[in-house]
């Protein structure tokens, strides 16, 4: 089991969701986060005061999958989120020790899908 965490452009969320549905990955968690990588953030101005390096708005996806879904999920996220510009984001793949479905108390890979 793996936990896939992706940081993407917020306006690419719909397309990524669409690609994930196509490969039948339906269980995702999305949150709004701030961050920047090579984009170096942006400058904002409030009443004449400049604030440089402010963080950009991003969407963070968390998807827990069984091994055979790892590559298709990564490919789907790339397909939906890639523009080729800086700021497209990153995908992190983390080993997942355990997964429990609260309703049924199932554990492990049967609890994921």
């Amino acid at each position, binding site marked *: 089991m793996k936990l896939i965490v992706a940081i993407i452009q917020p*306006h690419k*969320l719909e*397309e990524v969701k669409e690609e994930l549905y196509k490969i039948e990955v339906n269980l995702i968690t999305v949150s709004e986060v*701030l961050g920047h990588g090579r984009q170096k953030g942006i400058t*904002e*101005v*409030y009443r004449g005061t400049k604030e440089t390096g402010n963080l950009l708005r991003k969407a963070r996806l968390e998807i827990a999958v069984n091994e055979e879904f790892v590559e298709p999920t990564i490919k789907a996220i790339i397909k939906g989120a890639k523009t080729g510009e800086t700021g497209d984001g990153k995908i992190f793949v983390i080993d997942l020790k355990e997964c429990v479905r609260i309703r049924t108390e199932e554990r492990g890979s049967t609890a994921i899908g």
Partner: protein
Amino acid sequence: MINSGDTAWVLICAALVLLMTPGLAFFYGGMVRKKNVLSILMQCFIIMCALSIQWVVVGYSLSFAPSGGFWGGLQWLGLRGVGFEPYTDYASTIPHQAFMIFQAMFAIITPALIIGAFAERMKFSAFLVFTLLWATFVYDPLCHWVWGMGGWLRNMGALDFAGGTVVHINAGIAALVTALILGKRVNLEKNTPTPHSMPFVVLGTGLLWFGWFGFNAGSALAANGLAVNAFVVTNTAAAAAGLSWALIEWLRNGKPTIFGVCSGAVAGLVAITPAAGFVSVIPAIIIGLLVSLFCFLAVTVLKPKLGYDDSLDAFGVHCIGGIWGALATGLFASKAVNSLGADGLIFGNPKQFTVQLVTVGVTIAYTSVVTLVIYKLVDLFIGMRVEEREELMGLDLTQHRERAYTVLE
């Protein structure tokens, strides 16, 4: 003779109409994505600033100084000669400047209505130049034709009590033209934008409804029975239309929505605007009930079918609602309500309906052509649309370097 009651009423109404523009800002601002909300508020507020100046320097004279020409005369430039004595051809019991400042608020809100069509994708600098040109070359002449002394539509007998034609059809058709040539927002099909703050939409609708009493009842230009009639029918039509939109949604989609009730109420206020000083309360209910049906069809059937991206339905609500209101005035107007008006079709005067039709036709033709020319000119020199990268990041950050909401703290 100056009447202090009338003067007080018109000044209060001017303030009420001014409040409609911030109301509109919240109404529209709630409908856009949160990366663009400040751009909407900014566009509305800068119009309050820019048009206030345009109006006292040139706009009032071009609109209202007596003349039989294309514009009003130039004799009132910079408010020269516009003083504290009544100008009896417009309003015989209030200072001329009170009439002027009341009219200023109409000149402000009209271009602000168009914002709904090009929301989320227009460059701020281009917007500002476009708006000033539009006010001078579209609003001012049309205002003169319908309301100014010597205006040819006024002489023809067109009835437009508070601005159904001059304000709503005018702004609505300009909205359609700009939406058509500006094109759709990036990625619209795959990423359908959801209104980011429904409470703002409701707040804006409340402010609009409140301010609209100034818009319509103030257009009596006196604190009298006619003002009361306009007040009552305005409230009635808005109520009927809000109710009717909710019912349509209930029947068609299974659930009524607050967005629907707000859209309906605004459509009702638009439709009653030209009729407010000429119709009684039962026609107001009919006008309100039907306007929601027409506008609902425009935004849910016509818009997807024709494929233009009128982001916040400025055309679908203001132009469609305005046309219905102008024609309904030709149907339901009654001299029993206003002896200075005329009877409509159902009171045995079909000619009034024809006059209303001609006025609507002239407005659509003139406004669409001149809006197109102004758009193309500004596009040539400044460029109307933001770059795709800027559109995706949002206009708040790229046009103003501000953001509306923080994520942390």
